[in-house]
């Protein structure tokens, strides 16, 4: 992808913004295998690793800024933003 023009970057902000505003994060606890990549990459601390049961706990959903990092890095595709 080449460098965006001013107009492209601005209109892209608008599209992204509309999509992101309504997003809510959710975890499928059954699918979680405890690789904790979500905990590793979350910049706002939504996740806590449960080291006993080798799963992750979504403990602070209000902190979520819908950046999408955990969704992309989860190898089990157990996290959804919708």
């Amino acid at each position: 992808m080449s460098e965006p023009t001013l107009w492209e970057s601005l209109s892209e902000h608008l599209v992204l913004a509309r999509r992101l505003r309504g997003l809510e994060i959710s975890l499928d606890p059954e699918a979680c295998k405890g690789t904790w990549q979500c905990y590793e990459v979350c910049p706002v601390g939504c996740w806590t690793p449960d080291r006993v049961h080798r799963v992750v706990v979504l403990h602070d959903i209000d902190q979520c800024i819908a950046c999408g990092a955990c969704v992309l890095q989860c190898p089990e595709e157990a996290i959804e933003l919708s």
Partner: protein
Amino acid sequence: MATVFMKWLETEPADYDRGIQVLTLGRLRRVHQAIAERYAQSESRILEIGCGTGSLAAMMARKGAHVIGVDASQAMLDQAKRRIEGEQLGDRVEFVQIDASLIGERFDPGSFDLIVSTLVFSELPPDEQEFVLQACAGLLAPGGTILLADEFVPAGWFQRLWYTLIRLPLVFVTWILTRTTTAALSHPDDLFGRTGFRPERLLTFLGGSLALYRLFPTDAAAGEGVLPATAVGRLSHKSNLRTWLADLWALFFRIIPPYPKVRPGLYAIGSPDRASPVLVTGNFDLTVRRLVQAIDGAVDAWILVADSAGINVWCAAGGGYFTAEKVIAAVKSSHLDQVVDHHALVLPQLCANGVDGWRIRREIGWGVHWGPAKAVDIPVYLANHRKKTDAMRWVRFPAKDRMEMVTVTLGFYALLILVPVAIFWRGLFWPIAISLLGLSYFYGLVMPWLPGRDGLAKSVPLTVIALTGLLVYTRLFDPMAAPHMFNWAVGLTGLSVFSAAELQGMSPRMRGEQANWGWEAMIAAGLGLIYWLGPLALGWR
């Protein structure tokens, strides 16, 4: 720094010593004394490159050292010989008229315990500086060192600016007199490192522009100095006029394309080897410079700059410009597997929203480790064997960063708003400019404590504060007529909404970047209507 006049003095050997002492404000004599008293041991074998009129050679000979002085100028050496004969040191001092570049051929390897050189290297072109230093390395006996005093470009940008301003006219005058000049050494550590020396700075004078270094030969440096063929170059933290201007531009206009870019590829920082970590980053100039500033001197590492379209890693990853493919391409094109023995990449944590770590692991077999969110934590992160604390993971938005981001936002939007105002409504320029700046910075300061989850919601309390301020101000200091106050209220409401809503796009802890355009447009239209209809309805117009 007035040593630029040296070139002129060199044409007058008889006046040289007196002149050079005046030009260096007497500091050169102190450098000579320090060298002679501390390092010229009895019976040691010393080579002085560029001995000039022999004043340092004589001082060292008096301490019992055997000195060979070389200089390119026979006139200088004649003067030096007269001095040595006058002091009856002839059995300890010998002079040879050769150019500095020939010392490696003229003398036997390992024949000196100490090599000294004052105010010579700044007269040599860069390639010759390197060549002479390498020749010196061969001439030193085991345990031998070099003492090098010269004119250096100071390291801090402020000192550098002053230095340049003062030096420029001197260079001009010297050039007029002699058609030549001297070039102070900049980035001496690079030069010393490249030629296989570890520098220790012993003395500095005149704001860092005159300094004495002791150089220790290192065995490793000769090999380490060579970069792999696929590397683009070395990165080191610099602060000079160019970086200062780049920072200033970035402070106000960093969101305006085209973004200043760094050439993608593999770079070395410090002296990395085959076990050194590989840190991946994007190719936004400010990103790379801040990364280098954070780790230069603290770690030896490879920096793999991937093409992120000149955008910072978080935004580039979010926007689809910084992806796993870009990282894979950078790993492949720099032949990284031939440069290091391990297969581990450290990626910035904040690109995890767009760079698919599993794809890199799967497709090229390199391990992906998510580094800290901020570059300043990298040295500790690496020292702790790539273990992150929660504090390294979490993004904060402290007051300093908020102020910076307000400035970035204003740099662009102030242009958008204030330039038309200055052209079409000149009378309103200062009230609007001061209100916009005041509200924006005030909002930046108090933002975390204002109720509301996003910028648009926080604009409500901000508007309340602004209107309360207006009310208090008019009551206490400047009672104004109702229509006038009405205009102010409408204006402040608009600017409050604008300031708070626009900063959202710069805030790392709010979702939905710049989600507010539509709302802002609607609020602006509503305020316009009120501004137009209000006075009509109230019968003021």
